[in-house]
């Protein structure tokens, strides 16, 4: 683990101010420096969230100003009993289940591989991270072209190896989600890869040397030294990945528009369709509040896991 040094305020005695006054001054300047961000935060995050909670109890509509008629818990009841809502929730969870394991495992493997390189490490860092900086619209365009039936690159490669009747990757309900998941793994692998690479470089080299002296094989070293010492990084990567996957919208909206037959529509697109296309902002607010509770639950799990880890460290 990293060693922290606690800075000592040497100037306290030098300037002659007492601890209490110094701390009050620092506190005031702290508030002052964070004030611009806090104002933004309250105006654009906290405020709309509170408004959204209030709106979810009314039949608000996008094209009427004001809150609309009071609906009580009706919006929540409708959401909880709507098959579209639960199917969208399932699509989001399915996407998370499909992308999180590869994005954690493959990123770890690539990071271990890159870390072992003596030379040319910068090159592999570049090519594994480069897809991450591509914007979602560009990535969706590239992969839609790859997946185009018959004339796309995928299908022409497959026919070159003899598979002449591939499924319609983005238009077949059984394949659409997997196709988007594959594109997402390619796109966001770089971020986890970089986190793992940083975590790997914190592991002291003498541990490996000591293990080699004791006769441990490379595989043994990886299993007993590398992976356990990466536990905190893995926990971080895992929770970041799960939360990011739960927020999926861009790729599915751009590549399949939630289709075919709504079979890939994630929850955020359901909220968008209801709130912006159908104008029903009150109901959309209720659906997104329920969704917020789900993400909150996942975050709380990580919070308690990491607190447990900190206590144990």
């Amino acid at each position: 683990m990293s060693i922290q040094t606690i800075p000592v305020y040497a100037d306290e005695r030098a300037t002659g101010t007492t601890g209490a006054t110094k701390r009050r001054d620092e506190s005031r300047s702290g508030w002052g420096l964070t004030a611009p961000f806090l104002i933004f935060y309250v105006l654009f995050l906290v405020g709309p969230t509170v408004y959204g909670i209030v709106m979810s109890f009314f039949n608000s509509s996008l094209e009427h100003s004001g809150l609309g008629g009071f609906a009580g818990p009706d919006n929540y009841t409708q959401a909880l009993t709507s098959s579209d809502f639960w199917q969208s929730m399932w699509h989001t969870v399915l996407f998370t289940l499909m992308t999180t394991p590869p994005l954690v495992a493959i990123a770890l493997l690539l990071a271990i591989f890159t870390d072992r390189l003596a030379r040319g490490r910068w090159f592999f860092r570049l090519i594994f991270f480069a897809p991450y900086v591509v914007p979602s619209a560009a990535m969706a365009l590239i992969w839609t072209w790859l997946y185009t039936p018959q004339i796309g690159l995928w299908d022409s490669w497959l026919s070159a190896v003899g598979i002449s009747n591939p499924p319609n990757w983005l238009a077949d309900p059984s394949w659409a989600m997997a196709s988007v998941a594959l594109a997402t793994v390619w796109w966001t692998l770089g971020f986890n890869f970089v986190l793992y690479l940083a975590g790997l470089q914190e592991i002291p080299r003498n541990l490996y040397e000591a293990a080699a002296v004791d006769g441990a094989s490379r595989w043994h070293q990886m299993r007993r030294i590398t992976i356990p010492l990466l536990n905190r990084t893995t926990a971080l990567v895992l929770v970041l990945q799960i939360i990011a996957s739960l927020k999926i919208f861009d790729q599915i909206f751009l590549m399949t528009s939630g289709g075919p037959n709504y079979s890939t529509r994630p929850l955020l697109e359901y909220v968008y369709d209801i709130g912006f296309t159908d104008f029903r902002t009150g109901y959309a607010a209720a659906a997104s509040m329920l969704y917020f509770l789900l993400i909150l639950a996942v975050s709380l799990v990580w919070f308690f896991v990491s607190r447990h880890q900190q206590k144990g460290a």
Partner: protein
Amino acid sequence: MSTEGHAVSRRTVLRGAGLLGLGGLLSGCGSAFASGVAGIGPPKNTLSYWNLFGGGDGAHMVAMQQVYQKQHPNEVLDAVTLAWGNPYYTKLSLATLGSRPPDVGISHLSRASILADAGLLEPLNETELAPYGLIGRNFTPAAWQKAHMNGTLYAVPLDTHPFVLYYNTDICKKAGLLNADGSLKSLDSPEALTAALVAAKKVTGAYGAVASINNDAATQWRFFSTLYYQLGGSVLADNGQKIVLDDAKAEKVLSLIRDLAVKQGLMPTSVDYPGAITTFATGKAGFFFEGEWEVATFQTTKTPFNMTAFPNLYGGRYAVQADSHSFVLPKDPARTDARRALIFGFIRSMLNQSSTWAQGGHIPAWLPYQDSAAYGKLKPESNYKWAADYARYDDPGWYSGSGSDFENIMGFAIGAVSAGQMSPAAAISDMRSKLAQYANTTPPV
């Protein structure tokens, strides 16, 4: 990581970049970026026009726009094409709600009523339109009537696009389905249609007819509803709040569809939109059920084909599913009379070019051209022009219209019957349960 050895310090670089950025911002005040960020708005003589025309339609519309631009060199026509369906209408609505609407936009007439109900369209004053010739008797009556909501005019119709029947003339000749003059024999009953498809299948060796199913709720809905409307049925009433689906009539039509596709194998049970076009273009099917906009596609592929109105199968009053494209003015309180004059001039110019538009297959709503000899000579487009008077639009409702949730719900259920995945009874109960969720919701408009 020290900067001591560097000639130029980080502070200098940041200062320089900041000044450059400020200078660029000030000099680019007229640019789109600056006007968007500062909210100034586009320069005075720009006309912004949004449409949803892609493909062959898009090419024709671009040609018409270029003619307008050439005729009006002092104006700048800023035309934007957006994705068809819900994405287009969502953007149009949000832009209007956010006070950044285009000057003029295209809207399906079945959607214009929802936009008007939501207060997003500017009502059109017929006396203001008269000097430009945009008066009732110059437009197809059915379209002109549909363009009115509660007696107020909200849209200027451009065309009507009904569901039609494409037939391969070579195949039909070999199957003995053509009259002496080369036109298709009248198919005026389900039995006649079935017999024709059987004969065509014998010639092609593959299919009698094709209609796209996969990922295409719209085509399936149009196919079903044309026949359902011919039986006199409706689906929604009371502005979408009541479902008046006639189970018996729906079952009759769905059974015919299942019979043709699944039981007798006369139509493919799994084909998407491009696949259906290829099937007809390469002569693997004798008939193609679709809207009339694919005429240019088959002319390009040099398929020997002709078109006619979709047959009237049940001997009642003719009806055919159709919609109309129209020009609408999204609500903008800051719109001046001068700008309105510009917009009406643009609309009239587009209507004057109806001949270009008609080559894309649509029936022009502009009667001076529709009734002309020139249009009568335009074949095969003018074969079905009388269908415009029998156009049956989607039942009004806040979730209805072209590309809407209503069409998706109905179309996917009908598609499941065409694909052999659902029985007609199951499809009907699926339609009812999904529509009920919408019908029982308080309308947001």
